[in-house]
């Protein structure tokens, strides 16, 4: 295989979807460390205002705003998106549908390198004059349009450029995911035979592609406002600042599901294989996800209940928002029903999968408070919101990603992760996660506002509640620190872990038919799907699983040698 022999074409400018997936994974993990580190500065400032923070120094309000902005931006666009879609979409879709690669391998390579460029631009913005963007990850004008508010000039332009490049990269990815899933399934694999995580990736790609256009248009207008003085969002020039919020959240809400669905899909895969039971309600899960995807386009204004939205619009958006919890309840109950009366194998991946559902339920139910317009007027812009979205996004993205890594690591790297270290990592992560965010619910209900650098400047109530902030910060420090266990496990196992067999979990889907790690071209023969994806504990059989596909001799392999 001459085209795969060189170092550069094999590891750097590779068109192999598995290598591109690993590139996305490693870049995303590095950015996760950066994003987590920024949160440390933020939390330290909130717990002990205006004391020198090791590694940060003194954090004044302007820098605090930059930390908030960059933490949110990095975690959503440079961690959740590249890992859940870039890494797992790339790795799992071709392998799980029995394809040899993506439909457009060169576009795939371009997608990663565009993403890499966006990462460089974003990181560079930390080092320019006046620092990185500080207008919030939502980048609302006038905070983002007028440097007078944040004191940041070039940082904001670099932020917009980086986000634009990241979107371009994910667009290329989305074109690939959709085309590959629709056109390149193994013979015999119908759409309703797709492993559920592939359905989730497909839905996420469609949601992203259909929602990102309006935000790109908003970003173009913002860039023109900043650099040409066009005034789209400036009332003095006949513009409208609310317009940006509509364009942002028209994308922003579907985006929540873009980064939720792949994680939930991986959780479902792990649950069904570790429970040794068929996924409960496959068809209902697919229908629910499609319904939720459609609904997600008409809920966006629930982020704007207090921003000057016409009050007559609040009720319909509150109704659609509460309605969208129904399909997600169907999905979560299907997952719980999958576990019902199962003899469960608690691998580290399974622990993370179960905890994803448990934690996400807290996030989902607290969302109802915020979706109801009347309650939201009180809760809006308090730490209740912060706690709520961390209880949705942390399980869906971080716990979901860890579920995926612990489960597919053997397939990716050909070695097993250390299981004991994995379990210790799991328990400490869950402990510190809850320690961080449960106090924030309490603080939020007490009225603690978001995005303030010094909570002690509000004398009335919060001074007595500062201990909650300190507990939360201690939790955040713990949460960040225990990830060292994971990083050590990840790299040590990659180098020295026990060699993985082809199918260490006795799982049914077709990626387990090929050696770990699979070579270029994925399968030694042609994959043919012969049954549904989750034939666990089939009645009347001796074995407790039947694989979805079979390998047949490759049709043309003789001609090329």
């Amino acid at each position, binding site marked *: 295989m001459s085209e795969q022999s060189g170092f550069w074409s094999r590891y750097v400018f590779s068109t192999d979807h598995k290598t591109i997936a690993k590139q996305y994974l490693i870049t995303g993990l590095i950015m996760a460390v950066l994003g987590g580190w920024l949160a440390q500065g933020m939390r330290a400032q909130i717990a002990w205002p205006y004391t020198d923070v090791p590694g940060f120094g003194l954090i004044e309000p302007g820098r605090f705003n930059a930390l908030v902005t960059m933490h949110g931006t990095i975690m959503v666009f440079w961690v959740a998106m590249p890992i859940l879609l870039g890494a797992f979409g790339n790795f799992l879709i071709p392998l799980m549908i029995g394809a040899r690669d993506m439909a457009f391998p060169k576009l795939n390579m371009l997608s990663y390198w565009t993403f890499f460029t966006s990462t460089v631009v974003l990181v560079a913005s930390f080092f320019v004059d006046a620092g990185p963007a500080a207008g919030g990850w939502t980048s609302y004008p006038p905070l983002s349009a007028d440097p007078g508010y944040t004191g940041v000039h070039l940082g904001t332009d670099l932020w917009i450029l980086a986000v634009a490049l990241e979107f371009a990269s994910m667009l290329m990815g989305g074109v690939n995911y959709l085309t590959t899933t629709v056109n390149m399934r193994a013979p015999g694999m119908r759409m309703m035979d797709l492993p559920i995580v592939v359905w989730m990736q497909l839905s996420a790609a469609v949601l992203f592609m259909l929602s990102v256009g309006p935000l790109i248009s908003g970003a173009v207008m913002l860039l023109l406002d900043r650099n040409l003085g*066009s005034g789209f969002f400036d009332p003095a020039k006949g513009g409208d600042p609310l317009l940006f919020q509509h364009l942002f959240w028209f994308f922003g809400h579907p985006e929540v599901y873009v980064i939720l669905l792949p994680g939930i899909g991986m959780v479902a895969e792990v649950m069904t294989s570790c429970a040794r039971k068929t996924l409960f309600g496959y068809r209902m899960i697919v229908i629910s996800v499609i319904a939720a995807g459609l609904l997600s386009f008409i809920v966006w204004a629930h982020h704007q209940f207090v921003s000057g939205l016409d009050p007559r619009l609040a009720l319909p958006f509150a109704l659609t928002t509460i309605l969208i919890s129904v399909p997600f309840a169907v999905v979560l109950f299907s997952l719980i029903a999958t576990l019902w009366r199962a003899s469960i194998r608690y691998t580290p991946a399974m622990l993370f999968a179960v905890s994803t559902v448990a934690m996400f339920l807290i996030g989902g139910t607290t969302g109802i408070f915020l979706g109801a317009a009347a309650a939201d007027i009180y809760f809006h812009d308090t730490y209740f919101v912060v706690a709520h979205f961390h209880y949705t996004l942390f399980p869906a993205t971080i716990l979901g990603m860890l579920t995926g890594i612990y489960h597919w690591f053997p397939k990716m790297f050909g070695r097993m992760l250390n299981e004991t270290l994995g379990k210790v990592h799991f328990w400490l992560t869950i402990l510190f996660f809850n320690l961080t965010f449960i106090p924030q619910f309490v603080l939020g209900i007490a009225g603690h506002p978001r995005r303030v650098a010094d909570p002690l400047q509000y004398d009335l109530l919060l001074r007595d509640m500062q201990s909650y902030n300190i507990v939360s910060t201690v939790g955040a420090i713990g949460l960040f620190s225990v990830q060292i266990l994971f990083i050590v496990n990840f790299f040590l196992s990659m180098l020295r872990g026990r060699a993985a067999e082809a199918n260490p979990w006795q799982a049914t889907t077709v990626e387990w038919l090929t050696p770990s790690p699979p070579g270029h071209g994925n399968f030694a023969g*042609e994959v043919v799907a012969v049954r549904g994806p989750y034939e666990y504990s089939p009645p009347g059989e001796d074995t407790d699983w039947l694989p979805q596909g079979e390998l047949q001799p490759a049709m043309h392999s003789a001609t090329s040698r």
Partner: protein
Amino acid sequence: MSSVVPPAAWSGARRVPVSNAVLGTGVYVATAIMFFGGLVSAYLVLRAGSPAWPPAGQPRLPVAITGANTLVLLASGLCVWWARRAAQLQSRTRALHAAIVLGFVFVGVQGIEWIRLVGYGLRASGGSYGATFYTIVGAHAVHALGGIAMLVVTSRFVRAGRGDLPAALLYWGFVVLLWPVLYALVYLV
């Protein structure tokens, strides 16, 4: 690694109703439609909030010339459609070349009109009338230039006996059919 089949031997295992190129292009077109949806809704919102449209003292847009230019673009789209239907290779490339030339004429005339409008004092910085005009028309011009590039690449591939004309037709069709809508919204209504 040696047990794995090399790329040259990969077989297209599945017969598909829509080719990869057409499907991928279609997905991109859907995204672009949503992008223009964002621009157009911004235009409508800002226009509805403006007391007079066009505002007093702002130049009028060249309705007649742009109308004629719209016909040029539609003709270009028709040429690609012909190329798709043509049986012979020669008539295919000829139709594609005509489409490329007409596409360049469209973008060129648009550019000349822009320069004249700037001369008359229509600025992107002078309020939402100018800002929305340049943004919407400029975004379409960028997509048109991308489409022309795609037609050029396709015509070279077609001569080499491959290339996906249906995908080029899909994308160029989007650019061509989007324009009358934008023209009606921005110039006529």
